[in-house]
């Protein structure tokens, strides 16, 4: 049976919490298919130092190394025994088949990397938009893959389990330019949002949590420019932020923590500064100008009051 080692850098543990909610396969089902060597939150018999020693002396071969959290080589900010997370990773990098960055911090650095007093905090192979993090951009593991990024704050458990299972089954994974599995991240979180009709007719919501209205224009929704299948693979199998009336905040993207005012759409003279991916601003303004001229009666009513 293949095995998996989970280690943590600067992390809030959110991706671990998320993984506990996995369904189809469930958390326990996943770890019947792959042996969990060690996880800081669940392992009580094993000890990371012992596991590391066995790997170091080639007594143990690791297939999947999962990293949760941003990394640093500064002992003041993170240490496991006498090692920093960076040192542990340097030891392991050539000995494992795959390295998977679980969550936005391990992928791109995220909030820990905004820490001005420690400029050394980074993601594994990216630091925000910049290619190259702890590992250079051309780094590849034994399997030939670079670090496989599964961003999200947190990541959805199914994004993780699907990736692991695909690799276990020997399927090839195509990655996008930020090393995210394309199969998952080729979708925008806007795709499949139940507010698409409101988006098309430019009927905008003014408040959080309402059933009606699109959240793009007034409430800062990043759905149309965020790569994430949040409205395809629902959260807890039930819903998503935008379905519930909370704007997408773009947490799967490399620049997630660099923005300000998450619940505001940046506008200049009333015109959105950024427009949906794939269209020019000129095209977007033309089409929305036309849409605003007409009125879709149904969308201007409370849903309960429609026929």
């Amino acid at each position, binding site marked *: 049976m293949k095995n998996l080692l989970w280690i943590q850098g600067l992390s809030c543990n959110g991706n671990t919490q998320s993984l506990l909610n996995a369904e189809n396969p469930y958390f326990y089902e996943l770890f019947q298919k792959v042996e969990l060597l060690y996880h800081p939150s669940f392992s009580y018999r094993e000890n990371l130092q012992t596991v590391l020693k066995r790997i170091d002396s080639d007594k143990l071969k690791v297939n999947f190394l999962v990293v949760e959290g941003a990394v640093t080589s500064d002992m003041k900010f993170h240490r496991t025994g006498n090692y920093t997370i960076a040192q542990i990773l340097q030891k392991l990098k050539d000995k494992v088949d795959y390295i998977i960055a679980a969550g936005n911090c391990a992928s791109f650095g995220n909030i820990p990397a905004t820490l001005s007093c420690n400029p050394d905090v980074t993601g594994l192979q990216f630091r925000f938009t910049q290619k190259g993090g702890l590992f250079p951009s051309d780094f590849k593991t034994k399997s030939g893959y670079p670090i496989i990024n599964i961003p999200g704050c947190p990541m959805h458990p199914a994004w993780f389990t699907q990736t692991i299972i695909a690799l276990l089954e020997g399927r090839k994974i195509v990655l996008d330019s930020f090393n995210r599995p394309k199969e998952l991240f080729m979708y925008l979180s806007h795709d499949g949002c139940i507010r698409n009709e409101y988006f098309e007719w430019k009927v905008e919501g003014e408040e959080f949590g309402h059933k009606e209205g699109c959240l793009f224009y007034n409430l800062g929704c990043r759905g149309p420019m965020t790569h994430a299948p949040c409205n395809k693979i629902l959260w807890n199998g039930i819903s998503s932020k935008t379905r519930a009336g909370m704007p997408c905040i773009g947490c799967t993207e490399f620049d997630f923590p660099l923005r300000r005012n998450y619940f505001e759409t940046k506008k200049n003279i*009333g015109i959105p500064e950024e427009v949906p991916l794939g269209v020019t601003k000129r095209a977007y303004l033309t089409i929305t100008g036309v849409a605003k001229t007409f009125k879709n009666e149904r969308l201007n009513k409370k849903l309960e009051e429609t026929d």
Partner: protein
Amino acid sequence: MSKIRKLTKEERKKEIVKVACRLFAERGYYNTTIPDIAEELGMSVGNLYNYFRSKEELAKYIMQYSSKLLGEEIHKINQQDIPTKEKIYKIVRKFFEIGQEQPELIEYFLRVFLSNREVFEEGCEGFLCVQEVVTELMLFLEEGARKGDFRQQDFFPAFVTLMGPLGGMVFLQGENVLPKEPVEYSQELAENIWRALKAD
């Protein structure tokens, strides 16, 4: 006739627009018929209907035509890498130049489009027939504010601050009270618009 026959369909439409614009503005929309326009053009009524299926369609087309013309010019100015203030001057000047070269378009706008709204109710509602101009001005204002040149505000007040003076000027010209051509006021007008919109 032989000269007209050589024109492409688009060029011919342009000819029709020019003549129709003038007649509509001179005689009024309701007092001008398709046969009148055909006669003035020296073409048969049947042939004119090949271009426009009705007087209303022609009336709306003239608006779309003008919007496209001005929109394309503003588009070119938008593409240039010059300071925002200079762009205002270029837009103002271009507007008046078009008015000077094709005065019938301005006349039409003032005396037909603004005076016979019922004709344009369906198919030209809102900004539908002038979308190109509005889109280009949106892009222009957005960029100016993004660069920090313009003060942030709602779109409509900024829009009328920019376009209002231009309309006012050609209106005064139509009333024959302007001592100079509108284009000669471009510099001063552009300065006023800039001062009204610029960031403090």
